[in-house]
């Protein structure tokens, strides 16, 4: 049985939402930065032990606050991936407030906080940055190397069932 689920990717512009989507769906990565206008929709089926999840991924244009994202894009979401850029502190400084507000507008919806671009740091640097984050991220990822990308989406799929 295949179940369709709407997944939205949120976060500031340039944090790597589109790159993570592209890596997950097409196993590709590009160094070229193309800004997303409005929303881009992709789909990938994830096989779980009990069922298949057809993830309809809404890669939404980056905004400094999710409150600037059109409400209709967020409505009906079954899962959220909130991406921050480990190289830019301003993308995670208000992370706790953002997630709190999101939880209010999307109650009971699973949300994963992801620290992207981990390939740009050493292990020690990464540990220091994670300590600065207002919330502990679910995982650190790299769209460039593909590290943890599949695992993040699969985990969200599990939590949405």
């Amino acid at each position, binding site marked *: 049985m295949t179940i369709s689920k709407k997944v939205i990717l949120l976060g500031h512009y340039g944090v790597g939402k589109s790159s993570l989507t592209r890596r997950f769906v097409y196993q590709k990565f590009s160094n070229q930065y193309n800004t997303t206008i409005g929303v881009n929709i992709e789909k990938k089926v994830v096989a779980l032990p009990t069922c298949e999840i057809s993830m309809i991924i809404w890669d939404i244009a980056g905004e400094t606050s999710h409150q600037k994202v*059109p409400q*209709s894009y967020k409505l*009906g979401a079954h899962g959220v991936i909130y991406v921050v850029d480990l190289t830019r502190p301003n993308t995670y400084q208000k992370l706790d407030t953002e997630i709190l507000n999101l939880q209010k507008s999307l109650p009971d919806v699973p949300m994963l906080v992801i620290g992207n671009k981990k390939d740009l740091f050493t292990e020690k640097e990464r540990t220091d940055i994670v300590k600065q984050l207002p919330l502990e991220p679910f995982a650190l990822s790299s769209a460039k190397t593909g590290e943890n990308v599949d695992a993040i989406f699969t985990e969200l799929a599990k939590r949405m069932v």
Partner: protein
Amino acid sequence: MVEQKDELFQRLRDILLEKEHRDHQQLSQTVNELHQDINTRQRLEVKVDPIVDDKISYLKKNFPEIFGPAIARAVSVQIRESQDMMIDALYPIIGKLIKKYIVVELSALSEKIDQQLEQAFSWEMWVRRLKSWVTGQSLGKEIVAQAMEPMIQEVFVIKQHSSVLLGSYSRQNIMDRDMIAGMMTAIRGFAKEAFAKEHQDLQTIEYETYKILLKKFQTFYVAVTVSGAMNEAFKQKIDDLVLDFVHKVVNTTSATTSAEDYLSDPLRQYFSQTNL
């Protein structure tokens, strides 16, 4: 001597009051039984239930005659006294319906006038008339054959916000239907946010010779893709079809199935039978 007198007197009294004594005992027994009947639920039920049942059946049968006028009076009073509240509730719905009706009728009228003007005075029409006169073929048939007939190409039933596809029907091989449903939902959302009009919805998307008609319902919306030149009459037919499908199929099947795209088969069955 006195004792003897008393005994005699008692005997005499017994003889004289024997009948009253019997009656008293019988009466007392009857009262006891009645007391039992009234105070024992099961015994009372046996006596009363048939009467109550008869009364209930009588009321059921004659409810409109007995209570109809009183209810009608009460409703009438309620409506009269709550006019403002009712107007507030109905105004947006009726207003929207009237507005839609006027828009549809005006479009149809405008289209008809345009068609008649074009047909009557166009150079092509004179050429066709001449050709028809020379060849002897019917002008009407020629025009109909040349016209591009509109045709339903795809129908999608999509959940309002989550964009989950509840069912789809297509005459041709198209790209991933889930992606189309997602994108269509995003476009609707964008239009709503961008123009911020309450109680208004995106109703048509046009792409060259294709038109996508969007019809919103409470929890889902229906998107119908039409190829060819679509006029108001055809649009009305599609509207009627969609309403009929929702009424007959969607409202009756949703509660009985757990499959996600449970409307795909009914959609195929329903729309493949239509000649649109």
